[in-house]
């Protein structure tokens, strides 16, 4: 594939090329993986391997999602429900102020009446604006590409919420006493989709939303691994970044828009 391919949908350099750019830094890693394949013929390298608990995450991986909105059933909120349940996001005062890690967005073309339902969450940008504006360093990007809030440092100023072009972050307005063990959350801090970071660290190889999606619209995987299903589908079918013109190189890609 030529490096100058232009994404027909966005008029931008193809998103896949951006990933390639990123991947070029890890040629060493790919060679090691290839050698592993050669040493053990017949053994299929799992795209998502469990990392030992005491090992730090590295930029060998870049986690992402591929969301095929054409598979999203009208009005379906299974992924939102699963996310809320996994993270104990209980309804408090209604959707104006409640935390939403995944928003169910409906796009309607007024001319044709064609309607698309899709989930919107933190897009896990390579160049996240929320991290740029954070005055305390609480907003940060993990080496493996996951954008997080370190709530231990967050002072609740909400600059990141203003900076995010995807409206992906929420503020916790109320004190809570019913948190779940895997998702600590409390009043006065900002939060957003963590890409189910605890599941990734455990090596589950999926996220709560992808797992809950019965129509297979959400695929989780490693964008840095050219053998992963997500990379193969992106290179054969393509996938689009939301607001690609901002050049944020998002880790969440969409099809069917």
């Amino acid at each position, binding site marked *: 594939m030529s490096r100058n391919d232009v994404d027909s949908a966005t008029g931008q350099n193809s998103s896949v090329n951006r990933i390639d750019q990123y991947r070029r830094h890890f040629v060493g890693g790919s060679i090691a993986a290839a050698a592993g394949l050669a040493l053990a013929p017949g053994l299929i390298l799992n795209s998502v391997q469990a*990392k030992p*608990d*005491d*090992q*730090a*995450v590295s930029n060998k991986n870049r986690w992402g999602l591929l969301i095929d909105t054409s598979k999203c059933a009208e009005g379906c*909120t299974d992924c939102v*429900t699963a996310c*809320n*349940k996994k993270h*104990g996001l*209980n*309804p408090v*005062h*209604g*959707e*104006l102020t*409640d935390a939403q890690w995944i928003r169910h967005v409906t796009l309607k073309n007024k001319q044709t009446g064609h309607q698309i339902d899709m989930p919107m969450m933190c897009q896990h940008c390579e160049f996240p604006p929320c991290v740029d504006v954070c005055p305390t360093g609480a907003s*940060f990007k*993990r*080496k*493996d590409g996951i954008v*997080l809030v*370190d*709530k*231990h440092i967050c002072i609740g100023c909400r600059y990141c919420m203003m900076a995010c072009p995807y409206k992906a972050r929420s503020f916790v307005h109320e*004190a*809570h*006493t*019913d*948190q*779940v*063990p*895997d998702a*600590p*959350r*409390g*009043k006065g*801090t900002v939060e957003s989709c963590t890409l189910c*970071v*605890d599941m*990734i*660290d*455990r090596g589950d190889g999926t996220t709560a939303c992808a797992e809950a999606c019965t129509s297979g619209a959400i695929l989780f995987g490693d964008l840095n691994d050219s053998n992963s299903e997500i990379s193969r589908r992106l290179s054969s079918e393509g996938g689009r970044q939301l607001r690609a013109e901002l050049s944020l190189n998002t880790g969440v890609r969409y099809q069917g828009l």
Partner: protein
Amino acid sequence: MNIRRLPRLLLTATLLLWSIGSYAAGNYSGPDRDENGNIVPTPKGEKCVEPTDVIRANHMKFLLHQRDQTMHKGIRTKQHSLKECINCHATPDENGKIARVFDEDSKHFCASCHQAASVKLDCFECHTDRPEDAFSLQKLPADHAMSERLAPAASRKPHVVLNSQGQQDEQK
């Protein structure tokens, strides 16, 4: 030395020694222990993750270190994980109830000394003070918020109504 000053000096010295002594002895009560010296409610394991005197004096250091390791590097070893402390230490009492840290005069293991020693933590404003077991369906504590979480999706819809002034009102 002026002899008239001696009583005052002695009094000062005694007070000083007494306060140092009681501080060193740890005048906070610590977790409840039965007549055999075992902590009640009984932790789920035999031993702590560090020798007792080490964990007593240094648990905050371990926890704060672990916090940064997990948050930023994804290191999820169990030894100094807060979740694991709670899993082992927050167990039901003889009535089957798990004490909460924010209870007054709390019997929750982590609150037992903190309240007595006036140590204020913000950890449990975010971190749950209940063990993972308590969240499995069978052993669910009968508390409103927990049943809410497990209610079917339809009943979880946010309820927003506007009152006559057009302001948002909470519907119970």
